[in-house]
């Protein structure tokens, strides 16, 4: 069974003339790491909102097609059941905070679903370790840095042990160090947590190496979807469709089209370096260029 199965999905917001997304078919395997990329205002957030069930449950509009989460139609699932199955992290972490301390923020959802104190403790210890926020429990979630806020937001959603974790531009408001920390947490989540991750992200260079599936949403449709090795073929086409592939991958793609490279296109920097080192032959004596 897929984590998510989407067939012929279309959604038009009430009062708009055209569909925000249309004719979307997508299969997301369980425990896959999926990156949704594309220009702003082309339907990325609308798509993930349909997986979370925010659409159609909390919005008015016209719906077409089906979205199934673990085999169940989102339109038939209750808000509570959807909340258990699908966790959602916003670009602005403050949008989801409700408590006076980080610890309360983390425990809030767990108490709400009636877990035992022992289980709550276990989960808090687990997410604190995973996201590196152990030292912040007594702090107000509003007083910590932007990067720490986003880690708390991810921790509080992960603590609920959703089967699907959606993150909508989780690093867009962070500086490079904050971004690095979030991508490193996502790598740990992919490795250690039993969860399907769907992340909307502009930073293709950092998210692609983690991804099993890349999905480009353009003009409300799936313009291209596939594993990174296939997705990054013809980088010029991707640039025309509003995304910036990793520079190293773009370089290898150019070499390939000029017949100078026949290997596979990896979004992982170390693999690209290794491929090029092999192509260029053994180190040159003296080390410097002529």
């Amino acid at each position, binding site marked *: 069974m897929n984590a998510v199965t989407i067939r012929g999905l279309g959604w038009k917001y009430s009062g708009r003339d055209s569909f925000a997304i249309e004719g979307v078919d997508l299969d997301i395997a369980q425990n896959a790491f999926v990156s949704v990329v*594309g*220009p*702003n205002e082309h339907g990325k957030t609308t798509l993930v909102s349909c997986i979370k069930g925010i659409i159609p449950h909390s919005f008015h509009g016209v719906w077409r097609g089906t979205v199934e989460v673990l085999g169940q139609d989102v339109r038939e699932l209750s808000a509570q059941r959807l909340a258990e199955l699908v966790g959602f992290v916003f670009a602005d972490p403050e949008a989801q905070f409700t408590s006076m301390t980080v610890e309360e923020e983390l425990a809030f959802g767990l108490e709400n679903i009636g877990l035992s104190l022992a289980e709550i403790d276990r989960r808090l210890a687990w997410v604190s370790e995973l996201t590196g926020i152990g030292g912040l429990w007594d702090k107000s979630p509003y007083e910590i840095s932007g990067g720490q806020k986003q880690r708390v937001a991810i921790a509080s959603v992960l603590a609920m042990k959703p089967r699907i974790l959606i993150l909508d531009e989780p690093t*867009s*408001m962070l*500086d*490079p*160090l*904050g971004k690095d920390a979030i991508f490193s947490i996502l790598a740990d989540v992919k490795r250690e947590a039993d969860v399907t991750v769907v992340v909307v992200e*502009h930073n293709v*260079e950092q998210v692609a190496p983690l991804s099993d599936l890349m999905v480009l949403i353009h003009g409300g449709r799936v313009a291209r979807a596939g594993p990174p090795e296939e997705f990054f073929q013809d980088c010029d086409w991707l*640039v025309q469709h*509003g*995304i*910036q592939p*990793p*520079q*190293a991958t*773009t*370089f290898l793609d*150019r*070499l390939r089209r000029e017949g*100078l490279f026949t290997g596979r296109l990896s979004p992982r*920097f170390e693999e*690209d*370096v290794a491929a*090029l*080192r092999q192509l*260029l*032959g053994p*180190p*040159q004596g003296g*080390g*410097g*260029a*002529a």
Partner: protein
Amino acid sequence: MSGQTLIRVEDLVFEYPDGTRALDGVTLGIGENEFIALIGQNGSGKTTLSKCLNGILRPTRGSVRIEDLDTRERGVTKRIVTKVGYVFQNPDHQLFNNTVHKEIAYGPRNIGLDHDEVEARVREAARVCGVREELFGEHPFFLTKGLRQRVSIASILAMRPRVIIVDEPTTGQDRRQSVEVMNFLRDLWERSGHTVAIITHEMPIVAEYARRCVVLGQGRVLLDASTREVFSRPDVLARTFVKPPQITRLAQALEDRGIRRDVLSVEELLEEFQRNRSQ
């Protein structure tokens, strides 16, 4: 630095009222018609420095001179804003009038220009920034983010400053929007002869657009050189948690294969690769 020096910063120290020393002895000059990037981790002093450059903040010690003005003197603010403009990271922190026209006209009116001159300035700045006159009556709040940013840049340009400082012009924007705003800033530099300084964390943008880089770390200038030279010093950049663009790092990882370490673009690495293979 090219041509005449417009801004001269000497041994600048800035401390916030709580005692935090944000700048700790910065000396640099900014000349005519430069395209500069200020880079460094958060807290390195980039934003504080740029606010000192246009007199929003006054030095604790040392000095900032803008042509013949010393920012420590009282009453110079209205003259500074005609020489150095500062565009906030978030246009919503800057825009406060209820129409696009009033927003762009605010600065020129505030320095006491007459009606005809204000109108001329508004039209000129709007035209340069691609803000169509049909939008003059609109509320800035209802424009797209890209247009709001253009309106905020237009409101600064209406003061006709020679230097324009833009704080994180591409944050939160997608590729097309980033290219659009950066090409616009490049036009200001190339065609209108402005000096443009950007504050950014996006190193591929720096590599493509900026000719000079000032690298800040813990309130000091770690490096001040051409962009090419700065990105060939990853050891120094690491001290302020900056990495060169991926294409430059790729070239540097291939240095022992005879590839130049100061490559700035995919095209440059292609040329370098072909040169290397033909040897």
